[in-house]
């Protein structure tokens, strides 16, 4: 993974990210009420097995309740993604202003294989633990 210092151009992306993170934090108290409105996973209904994103809402609810370990046990990748998404978003504008290092996501074959492997391992975990 290559890195470069943040530039002023990155401020708009950091701002959008911060807005999404701040919205998520402000709506966290309503998540439990809204989680019932979400439709069930079609794959789970048809086959009884989870799709790669199954458990993400439950993991989010555990995070809102401050139960990070339980959230990780439900869906590790979704929990890490949610954590990085919210905390990273709140810090992003300051990070850009301070010219902190940002990763350069290269579409190299090795990077793509690593991403696919991570998604696949997480999905196998969900299937084994019958999430």
């Amino acid at each position, binding site marked *: 993974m290559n890195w470069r210092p943040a530039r002023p151009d990155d401020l708009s992306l950091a*701002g959008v990210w911060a807005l999404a993170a701040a*919205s998520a934090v*402000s709506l966290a108290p309503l998540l439990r009420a809204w989680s019932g*409105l979400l439709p069930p996973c079609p794959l789970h209904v048809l086959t009884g097995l989870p*799709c790669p994103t199954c458990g993400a809402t439950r993991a989010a609810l555990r995070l809102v309740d401050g139960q990070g370990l339980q959230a990780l046990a439900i869906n590790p990748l979704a929990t890490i993604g949610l954590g990085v*998404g919210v905390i990273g978003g709140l810090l992003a504008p300051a990070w850009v202003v301070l010219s902190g290092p940002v990763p350069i996501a290269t579409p190299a074959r090795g990077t793509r294989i690593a991403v696919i492997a991570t998604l696949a391992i997480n999905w196998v975990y969900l299937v084994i633990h019958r999430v």
Partner: protein
Amino acid sequence: MEERPPTSAEFGEVPPVPPVMSEPPPPPPSPPPSAPVIPWEQPGVDIFSAFFQTVKLLLSSPHRTFASVPLTPNIGRAFAFGLIVSLIATWVGTFWQLVMGEWWKSFMPDTDFGNNMAEIILGLTAPLWIPIVIFLSVGFQHLCLFVVGGARNGFSGTMRALSYSWAPSLLAVIPVCGQIVGAIWCLVLNIIGLSVIHRITLGRAALAVFLPALVCCIFGVLIMALFGAAIFSALGKGG
């Protein structure tokens, strides 16, 4: 004595030869006219004109319009477009849901149409949850694009493709069929937008869009095939 013409030496100074006036150099060729930028991202255009012109262009000539999208890292305008379009579509959809809900219930009294209060709360809090949905949608789309090897112009490219592809969701102003037609049109624009902005084929863009559904379907078929094989084998042993 015959007069001879005076020599130049007798004149003293040689009259200066007037310089040969060369033609003025041709003016440098004028630079080719810059490609028009999508109205929403043109500086100096008033916001209402820019919005309606952008929507009209996206609906009438999407390929050319997406080709005019600038690929700068500044995604603020594109995000704002997606936010405005999504807000309008959500509020109009909520309005029709509340107005037409009773009418639908009269035709299908046994069907559960959900809670009106939930619709109202979702509509009122839309400015808060729509930014989350946009960011998650773009992130997920970009991940799928990355997996199929099509993320050539970065997250900002995907943000622009997705935000502008939501223009047809304004068809929600038409009750009943507007949302359905708009959703399908948004999907088509999404594929075109990703193809043009990331400079990939339409096939690869479509693969990125449908990747989650494809993976789940293939997985589901494999599971059913395995179960089918196991049941067949058990029946064969039992018979």
